[in-house]
């Protein structure tokens, strides 16, 4: 196919996408945020954080291999495409709608750009001055206390990573929240929250142990409001931040089928 033809097809499907976005009027910011979380944990591993890592498809720009309505997309998200690596995800319709709403919002946002930094220097900062491995893990090395970053470049955009380094308290994903419990003996345990119910709480603690507590056995318990992640605003200079972001963006491991 000649470039002109590709452009025409792209235009056609983009128009189709725009014309079929009737669902958008019902989506709130919270819906879009939820759709983003679902996208990151279920879709980004193959499609990339910007949705453009599968050849011929750019989800953030509404670009597909054939014309798609919102309903088509919701159907594909839920049932997959037989004979391709695209699996069915069996989401409720409402959740699939939120993913579609998120994808539409991505088209209007700034694209990832890790090019300003040097990934090799960023790697050295990660292991050295930044002491990132104190809490984070990459390819089996480092701590399990914080989020595993082995694949973070496949899941998060550069601007999101930069923001996490400078303003770690601005957005803490649900799966990265910390929790603190105080036993009747006064012993305090803090760790990354894994699960919580009315009566019990489960976490991974600072020694990377899986711990479970019965709330009625505790003197006190609750969320840790501030992220244990320090801000690197005053610890690293802008070039170092850019280097570190470049390194993080480079951490991409596509899942084995």
């Amino acid at each position: 196919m000649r470039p002109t033809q590709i452009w025409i097809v792209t235009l056609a499907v983009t128009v189709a996408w725009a014309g079929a976005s009737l669902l958008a009027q019902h989506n709130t910011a919270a819906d879009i945020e939820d759709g983003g979380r679902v996208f990151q944990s279920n879709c980004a591993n193959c499609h990339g954080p910007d949705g453009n890592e599968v050849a011929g498809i750019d989800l953030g720009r509404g670009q597909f291999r054939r014309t798609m309505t919102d309903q088509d997309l919701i159907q594909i998200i839920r049932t997959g495409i037989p004979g391709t690596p695209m699996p069915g995800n069996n989401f409720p319709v409402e959740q699939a709608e939120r993913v579609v709403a998120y994808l539409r919002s991505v088209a209007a946002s700034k694209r990832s750009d890790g090019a300003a930094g040097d990934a090799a220097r960023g790697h050295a900062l990660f292991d050295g001055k930044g002491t990132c491995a104190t809490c984070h893990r990459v390819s089996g090395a480092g701590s399990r206390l914080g989020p595993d970053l082995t694949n973070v470049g496949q899941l998060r955009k550069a601007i999101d990573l930069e923001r996490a380094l400078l303003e770690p308290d601005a957005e803490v994903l649900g799966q990265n929240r910390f929790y603190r419990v105080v036993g009747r003996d006064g012993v305090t345990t803090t760790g990354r929250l894994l699960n919580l119910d009315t009566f019990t709480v489960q976490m991974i603690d600072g020694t990377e142990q899986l711990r479970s507590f019965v709330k009625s056995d505790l003197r006190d318990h609750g969320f840790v409001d501030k992220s244990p992640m320090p801000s690197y605003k005053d610890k690293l200079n802008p070039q170092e931040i850019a280097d570190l972001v470049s390194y993080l963006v480079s951490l991409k491991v596509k899942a084995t089928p």
Partner: protein
Amino acid sequence: MSAARRRSVCSLGAALVALGMVPLVAQQVSFDRLLRADREPHNWLSYSGTLFNQRHSLLTQVTPANVKNLELQWVWQARSLEKFEATALAVDGVLYTLQGPPVQGRYQVVALDAVTGRPFWTYEYQPANEARPCCGRVSRGLAILGDTLFMGTIDARLIALDARTGGVLWNVEAARLGEKNTDKYAITHAPLIVKDKVIVGLAGGDLGVRAYIAAFDAKNGKELWRFYTIPGPGEKGNETWSGESWRTGGAGVWNSGAYDAEANLVYFGTGNPAPDWDGRSRLGDNLYSDSVVALDVETGVLKWHYQFTPHDEVDYDSTQVPVLVDMEWQGRPRKVMLWANRNGLAYVLDRVSGEFLLGKAYVRVNWMEGFDKSGRPQRVPGKIPTRDGELIMPTVLGATNWAPPSFSPKTGLFYVSAWENTGTMAVEGQFPRGFGVAGTGGTPMGQATLTPNTKKEEDGFGVIRALDPKTLDKKWEFKMSDITWGGVLTTASDLLFSGGKEGYFFALDARTGDLLWKAALGGQINSGPMSYSVNGKQYVTVAAGNALFAFALRQ
């Protein structure tokens, strides 16, 4: 530990102090711990508890006197409605288990708090669409070494997971899948850990694969050795297959093995030859189908074998877990292997030399009438599939199947869940029609949900039988109205736990077989029970339906 890692840990320690955390020492499951799992009865570190596969817990808090006070502590319900066949691992207060995937769905691997049943993490894996396991999208369990869990999959992959997070460490191809039936490999059993190796067998015998057992490096998944359960041209045993039949002869491996450290041998059972019910295209004994093979753990080289059913035409898979026992045999200590086989016979073998010591029927058997001196069964003429049909006992599904048995060093008895009174009317070239259980409505195959039972005793029934391993004589039995796919657990307080197709999970007196307690779980029990303890409290678990149940004494 590298200098960088030490620094990292030091600064983490400082950060934790600041956060008010109290560091604990993380414990890894070394191979020494697996080898001496009997030293830590609060844990359950491998499929059948220890590498000897005795499925015997040394915990004694629950006794014949108080077992009536068992009550449900928690239930974990899997998403998949497949049969739940796995036995969980218990490691220092954390349970690890998995459930097989529905069609076009995913495995669920979970780390559960052993006290509350609440998940710490969940890992999901979607097998390839090409996966076509013959007999259920199931898994019988995980294995652990260090901080790593290992799972085999129905698309023949071996996956290593971080036990703290559920993150994938590596995912390798244990066998190449293809479009033909002869490529339909699968892994359905819990891997066996020996030293630094993860050892698995490949299933697919019913579909005509040439199966094998392979060892993989636990660190990276690199294949270290492979033993084909059907010898190739030029190898001893290949002559037991006529023509080219060895290429598609099956002999699948679909249950976990055992390990003897002194002999440095691993033992695995092998499945039926293919095609299952018509042996005319594969004349000969068909080695090493329906056998136990003893392999050198360093090289995978065969040290000895014993074939339970030469030239099998009834599908007598020998994939029961080998049970290793050190016992007195005819006046002197002997390292033996106990085996209650699908073909209706129980065996005592010398596990160092492979010598046949004793064999005896433990259900009604009519296909053989004794052994020669070498331990080869002497067949009854005519007991083969025919066009007009022939009653062959036990049934095509066997006197027992894959459900794990138990040996109690305390009682000295070997406990087997068996099917009695069932036979096969085999029809040439067709799936055998069953007399008894298979012919009275309803499928005898295990399912997740309860099914109606209208069988008379002569139609077939399930039974727990206690055998004296010195004679293989029956000491007692506990009959069920329906058949059973449940395994057996014994404890050092002389309790026996099991369950069956009726959905009852029950406790028997291991010395007498008397019923002491039961609970109706609402789904068929297709798994082996196990026991563990946390903070001095003993739990007993079993999977039934598509859920895992944990019981402990009422407080």
